[in-house]
């Protein structure tokens, strides 16, 4: 056989084998019923932008598994319905996904009222639900459920990381700016208790109704009260409008601002001026840790057309939660909900795997992921246009534990949780 002929045959063989390897896995996966994962994520309303971001995260994890042949030899199908940042819609969506679309698992949530609504439906059917990004302390406290796992840091975790230091640096007279729903209430409650426990005083708490677009009266009132520190628990489109209006009035320079948690999609695109004060987050795309650069590159390659050019905490939570769920299903060898729940309870996740500074784990008593909390502020020396955060400190999870959560959380027993296999 001539050398050229041999090379041609080898090339043809390689050309066939490459796709065959993939298609073989697909073919095997295709023989079994697909595993349906319901993505209960907002595409509209106050958290519409963040909902779309976490959906991309979940989709990336699903894509990675499907490229490997799915999970348990089954192709994974993602089913998304808009929960509209509305608890009533979220209940309907969850009910429909479970009963009509046979979703084996539900993933996604930003608004704590929405997360609570979904989890009640999920518990009724025993469907495992991952609350990816809503961070009211009640989610792993009084509203916890056996089927629900909470992936974000909560308001109390962030407060532990921020409040004491802010009191020392900025003063003891605080004003709370509270989004008027469960996350805002619970986060401000936690802020108040920490401020008062450390000898400070809450001068006033201003409730901000959801979908507030004009903050002028709030900003005038703040000036009349003259606090040392303003602690905002305001999220979604509301915080975007607030930030813009604070900058317009230059009040960012006149007062010390604390924003409990700053989600990346809520600040991306507002311009560097709109980033002010000190705030908490669970991740930043320029953390100097193994795997971060590669992850950012993968995001940019996978989603070249998206407006948010670098991934943030909301995207990462969507990705990590989905990936961990699929890993657990693979390891357990079954989609049985109780087996999956037991495998998740107490599960340890390495810092390297999650691209954070400290190891994380799932608290078996509350089902909340205990993870690194970062304190951040505006970056006055950005390395590039998107480099708008300066990470001030990383706090290990054991230092920011929400001690009240296990007392408030009463998980249903395994027996009281319907068992099913998808």
């Amino acid at each position, binding site marked *: 056989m001539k050398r050229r002929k041999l090379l041609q045959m080898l090339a043809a063989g390689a050309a066939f084998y490459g796709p065959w390897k993939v298609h073989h896995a697909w073919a095997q996966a295709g023989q079994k019923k697909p595993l349906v994962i319901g993505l209960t994520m907002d595409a*509209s309303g106050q958290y*519409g*932008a963040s909902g*779309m971001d976490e959906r991309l995260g979940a989709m990336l994890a699903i894509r990675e598994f499907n490229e490997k042949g799915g999970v348990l030899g089954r192709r994974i199908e993602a089913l998304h319905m808009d929960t509209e940042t509305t608890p009533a819609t979220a209940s309907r969506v969850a009910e429909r996904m479970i009963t009509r679309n046979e979703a084996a698992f539900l993933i996604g949530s930003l608004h704590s009222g929405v997360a609570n609504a979904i989890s009640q439906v999920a518990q009724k059917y025993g469907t495992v639900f991952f609350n990816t990004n809503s961070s009211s302390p009640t989610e792993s406290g009084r509203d916890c459920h056996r089927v629900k796992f909470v992936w974000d840091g909560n308001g109390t975790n962030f407060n532990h990381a921020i409040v004491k230091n802010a009191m020392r640096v900025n003063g003891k007279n605080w004003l709370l700016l509270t989004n*008027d729903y469960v996350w805002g209430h619970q986060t401000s409650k936690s802020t108040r208790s920490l401020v008062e426990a450390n000898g400070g005083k809450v001068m006033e708490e*201003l*409730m*901000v*109704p959801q*979908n*507030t*677009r*004009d903050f*002028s*009266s*709030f*900003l*005038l*009132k703040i*000036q*009349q009260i003259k606090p040392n520190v303003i602690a905002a628990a305001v999220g979604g*489109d509301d915080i*975007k*409008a607030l930030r*813009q*209006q604070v900058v*317009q*009035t*230059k*009040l960012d320079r*006149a007062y010390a601002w604390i924003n409990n948690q700053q989600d990346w*999609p809520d600040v*991306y*695109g*507002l*311009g560097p001026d709109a980033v002010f004060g000190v705030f908490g987050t669970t991740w930043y795309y320029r953390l100097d840790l193994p795997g971060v650069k590669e992850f950012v590159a993968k995001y940019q390659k996978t989603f070249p057309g*998206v*407006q*948010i050019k670098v991934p943030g905490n909301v995207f990462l939570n969507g990705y990590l939660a989905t990936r961990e769920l699929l890993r657990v299903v693979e390891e357990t060898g079954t989609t049985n909900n109780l087996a999956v729940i037991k495998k998740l309870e107490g599960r340890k996740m390495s810092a390297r795997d999650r691209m954070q500074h400290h190891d994380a784990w799932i608290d078996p008593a509350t089902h909340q992921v205990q993870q690194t909390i970062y304190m951040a502020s505006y970056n006055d020396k950005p390395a590039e246009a998107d480099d708008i955060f300066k990470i001030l400190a990383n706090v290990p999870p054991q230092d920011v534990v929400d001690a009240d959560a296990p007392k408030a959380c009463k998980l249903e027993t395994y027996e009281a949780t319907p068992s099913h296999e998808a």
Partner: protein
Amino acid sequence: MEFVGNLLPHLLNGVSLGLLFALIALGFMLIVGVMEVINLAHGSLFALGAYVCIFLLSQKFPFYAAILLAPLLVALVGMVLEVCLRRTYGKDALYGLLLTFGAALVIEEIIRLAWGSGEKQLLPPPELSGAMMVGGLIYAKYRLYASFAAVILILSLYLFLEKTPYGAMIKAGAHDSEMVRALGINLTRLRLFVFALGTALAAAAGIVLAPIWGVRPHMGVDAVVPAFLIIVLGGVGSFWGAVLAGIMVGVVVGVTGAYASEWSLMSMYLLLIALVTFRARGLFGKKTALEA
């Protein structure tokens, strides 16, 4: 006395906010008053105005040229919408509602496709930006300029409707369209013009409000609800009713924002309920369309 001193800035802020609310409602009022069409696409056209302005600025148009040109371009979209609406004239009002609702969704999705779902910024030029001291309190300069722009637009529209022959035709069209047609006035063209004008006003409001509210595809939802409420509150078709209702809503929202903040958004609905309970036609509902 101290209470009054503290209240005063909130009252003034409420008036300023109210003028902006009135501006949002103006185009909506014009189309409802003259054409008896509830234009549910008003909010999306409001958003489109802001986006088109941002686009023009990105194409290196000077700021003041962009804010003048953008409403005209959006008016063209309004004209297309009016042509689509023609088949619904004289039929059940539900047809017009459904069509404009569909148009609202289409425009919002076009915005998403063209500019993405994320946040955009429309920054005012430096001479309109920054803060100023009013009675010892810091206030955004831009808000005063925005209120001033609202006053200019309100007065211009009023003068146009009252002092020009075309304004007279529009008002006559609102009263009795058949008679206007019988007098030889081209009603089709008149309606097209009114729709374009209402649309341009929606876009202008979107541009004025963009630096305050921020720019996102669904920002129109934040505009269409207060606009609808203001029209009902002021009395459908009443020019000054809409202006006064806008100011009332602004004052109520502004003052409750300061003293009972959790009620600040709800307050406008409570105001509507309270007023409509005693005067179902709204403030100036007795007078028919555009009789200022």
